[in-house]
């Protein structure tokens, strides 16, 4: 037997193997093909087992050829294996559905009043105000008297009060915190006081409990211009940079001068009308009332022992529900306290 015929036989294996691999469509068939050609008892091994019978030169020649063929067969097998694996992966991926729902944990949410309170407080904290809190059940003194509302003062009619006893009330505003803060510290004072307040009032636009945020700044040289600046900056943070404020003279017993603050309507942008007619939010006026403010009344400074000549200050207070309704377009005040999760989950 000549080395040449053995080499030719080896070459023949390559073609046969390639054809066999091509026919293998599954991994099991591929494995069978591998065993048939490359296995210990396979065709390549069978040819190579005849190498020892050749003379040394021919054996070397044939041995080299055998190794080359083995490499080629292995390469053919690896390529086919990669093809089949890729095909299998394609089949597997074809069934992958990226749209199946995930294991989403239960969703929580903050009450809209909390969200807006936090937003307002953050805006004011960045301006330098600190947060203070105080009791919701208050003495008549802190809630009224020290705020320049002595007994029998008609201004007490402005707020219908819920009483615990003759001298104890559910605070009707967060303004008692002005007194508590100033009694506890010397100027400069820059605080905001968020919290629940109570009025004896219940109809479409009033609930007996609601939330307010009070602001107080006392220092030397504080003016109404500072108040306007603070509120303008704050309102633009909450309602957007194009929002304008309007100061209307008004009356609060604990500020002098006092003003009601309107902002340009969030729905119609101050135009007073929308495509569908007069604006329902501002009732065509272009403005909506949002808070009350003013320069701290000297009588209030007297009540806390501040020097009324040296110090001036401003105070403001706003209803959080009102701001929230405007900001989110909520039409019904009562929804805030029904806590329907279909309502809560929107925020």
């Amino acid at each position, binding site marked *: 037997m000549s080395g040449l015929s053995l080499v030719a036989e080896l070459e023949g294996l390559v073609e046969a193997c390639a054809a066999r691999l091509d026919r293998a469509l599954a991994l099991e068939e591929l494995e069978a093909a591998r065993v048939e050609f490359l296995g210990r008892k396979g065709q390549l091994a069978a040819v190579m087992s005849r190498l020892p019978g050749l003379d040394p030169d021919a054996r070397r020649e044939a041995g080299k050829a055998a190794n080359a063929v083995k490499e080629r067969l292995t390469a053919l097998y690896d390529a086919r294996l990669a093809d089949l694996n890729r095909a299998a992966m394609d089949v597997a991926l074809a069934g992958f559905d990226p749209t199946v*729902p*995930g294991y989403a*944990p*239960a*969703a*929580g*949410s*903050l*009450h809209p*009043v*909390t969200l807006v309170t*936090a937003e307002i*407080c953050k805006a004011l904290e960045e301006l*330098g*105000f600190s*947060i*203070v*809190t105080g009791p*919701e*059940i208050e003495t008549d003194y802190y809630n009224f008297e020290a705020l320049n509302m002595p*007994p*029998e003062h*008609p201004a007490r*009619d402005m707020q219908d009060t*819920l*009483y*615990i*006893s003759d001298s*104890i009330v559910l605070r009707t505003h967060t303004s008692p915190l002005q007194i508590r803060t100033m009694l506890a510290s010397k100027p*400069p004072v820059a605080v905001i006081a*968020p919290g629940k307040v109570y009025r004896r*009032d*219940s109809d479409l636009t009033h609930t007996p*409990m609601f939330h307010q945020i009070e602001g107080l700044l006392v*220092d030397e040289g504080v*003016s*109404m*211009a*500072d108040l*306007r*600046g*603070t509120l303008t*900056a704050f309102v633009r943070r909450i309602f957007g940079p194009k929002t304008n404020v*309007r*100061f*209307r*003279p*008004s*009356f609060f017993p604990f500020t*002098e*001068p006092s003003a*009601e603050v309107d902002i340009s309507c969030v729905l119609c942008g101050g135009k007073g009308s929308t495509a569908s007619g007069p604006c329902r939010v501002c009732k065509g006026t272009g403005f909506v009332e949002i808070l009350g403010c003013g320069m701290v009344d000297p009588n209030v400074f007297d009540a806390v022992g501040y020097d009324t000549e040296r110090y001036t200050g401003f105070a403001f207070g706003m209803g959080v529900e009102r701001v929230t309704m405007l900001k989110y377009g909520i039409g019904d005040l009562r929804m*805030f*306290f*029904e*806590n*329907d*999760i279909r309502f*809560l*989950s929107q925020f």
Partner: protein
Amino acid sequence: MLLSLSWLRELTPYQGTAQELADRLTMLGLEIEDIFNPFEAIMGVVVGRVLTRQAHPDSDHLSLCTVDVGGESPLPIVCGAANVAAGQLVPVATVGVSLPGGLTIKKSKIRGQVSEGMICSESELGLAEEKSPGIMVLPETCQVGTPLPEALSLDTCVLDVSITPNRADCLSVLGIARETAMAFDLPLTLPEVAYAESGPEAAKELAIDIEDPQQCPVYRAKIISGVAVAPSPDRIRWRLTAIGQRPISNIVDATNYVLFELGQPLHAFDRAKLAGNVIKVRNAAEGEAIVTLDGQERKLTARDLLICDAEKPVALAGVMGGANSEMADGSSDVVLECAVFRPGTIRKTARRLALPSEASYRFERGVDQVGSVYALNRAVALMLETAGGTARPGVAMAEPKPFTPRGIGFRPARATMLLGEDMPEDFCRKVLSGLGCQLSETDPSGVIAVTPPSHRLDLEREADLIEEVGRVYGLDRIAPRLPRVSKALDDVPAESEFGFWSRVRTFAVGLGLREAVNYSFVGHADLDILCLDAACRVSVANPLSEDQNVMRPMLAPGLLATVRHNLSHGNANLRLFEVARVFAADAMSETSAREAGRLGIALHGLRHPDGWPWPKDELAGYGDIKGIVEALIAHFKLPAGVYARDDSLPWLAPQVVVTVGGKRLGVIGQVTPEVADAYHARHALWLAELDLDALRALADGVKRGFKALPSFPPVRRDVTLAAAAGVAVGDVLTAIAEAKAAIFEDVLLIDAFTPEGTDERRLTFRLTYRHPEKTLKDKEVDKVHEALVAAVLAKLPVTRP
């Protein structure tokens, strides 16, 4: 206050529109809430002339008329009034017009005769309260075809002005006219008052005796004799109607007219019913009574003020007249009171007796003592004009405390400083004198002595004057400026309660809970259901309703109400929380109550969100709510809580008290079926209520710090124990910890089940051992582990199965 624009125009010649006026007044601090036409409903009614009238062929009380309403051809109208006659000018409601009573005129056939409109009576037009006997016949000055309100010069434009409590001076047409005149630089003219007087001097016939000048600084009375009580002339009746007042009689209407025009309340007594020749103003005796003219007997206190004749009280001063002295049909002599009373006194009486009136409203805010002279004369003139009679010369009066104008030091520089905008001295002077103030020369220190007019009782201090200057300048014109908020270097505030609550809220939201906000008050009945202690409750003295009459001592009642609301709206799966205060009575507190922060949690329904791939049909239970509490405690880096069974709240079972570091943190429990049922819960309803003040104190005590990561690997050993009924997992965990094995690091329960047919629980624990300085050998660990397990077996009724 309702202000008629045409009435205003009688005092100042304002020619602009109502809207312009409203805008200007609003920016001056007199907010206009609304502008409306009180006669809107009859704007469609026109003046018509009855051309012909003949009897209806099929009725003996109906007439067939033809009426010219200015249209192409006269309208046929069937009229039922007896007084209709050809040639009359009459108000006609044409087809399509709706009358105040709700009747809409249609083309119709009345007993076979076509009728295309209705000839109206005064009452049908809402111009008279009592049913009119016949149709209204209009004066010849009316033009056919003109809308009736126009033809009658009715007050068709009314502004609803919201007057703040400080602006008592604006509770009248005069007051708003003053502001209007100032704002538009117009003159102000008061109606001229002139009348003849005759007979004896009023002061000779009536003495005025004021007990306490503080209560009544001035009391004036005019005597008019020979009046004829009758309805007022149309223009007065209709004007009062326009501003929502019910006309009564010429005498009473004159007092009301002046009240609304000038802001001075007056009262007319029937002189014949007054005993003696004296009016006494005195405080009531405790328990004294008077029947007011609404027929109610009023029990009085010594703080109420009475007007009395020689024998008896005849009026509750400033609040309401007495029934025993009121003007009635047939009365002929009037004592007309024009006084000023102490505001606080009137307010107290009106409030206590729940008798608010237009008069008391003005007295309690303060009336113009100087202006009252003119007001009295104006009322007398009106009465003489509308009711006839003769006025006695002079006034019966006492003025023990005349009005004393006060001077206020005003510094333009201070106005500039406070308003933050330059307020030049001449501008300040112009504004203040425009408001009726007297001004001195400026002294060398820049102070002007300002004397406000008698009608501006609210101007007491420099700040009040600065407000006036700012108001007239326009607060809205002040240029905004951001303040420099200065703070002391050592002003480092601790985290506020609000800040801590925010952290708790954020945490709860992260765990998939939705925040509820409930009213702080609930009903005593809610607390009774929950058997909450009655002694500690803080009741609301004047609640709006029975379900809001007590401050909640726990968040639970509010959360339960939220659960009920949601379940009744089909929201079955609930994971809720609330952060708020609770209240308990506390005699030691200055507010008589103790307030504490709480976190409340409520779970009901499915454990997991609805839908694939989450497991279905698993309901939230103890493990879920406890897991939230455990996570909260871990979140604040506190030591693990101790959970012990409890039964102090009879509506929670099981009920577990949570303690951390020896401090009671709160309670977890399942609402018992009977109570849960009352709140519509169909599944287990679990609540937790945690003390946020305690949590905050604990959290504040935690020092966070770093520990080096372990250098050597852990070794883990599992052990399964069969625990007899009654042995709690916590008991085993405690026993393991208390074995104090040197290399013991941690233990974790990894499995728990109860094999069928036994009541022994199989509990598998995974223990972690680690040496800080070397790698442990299996043998070493085995030895320690076995000793530890043996210690547990020795201590508890547990076995190794």
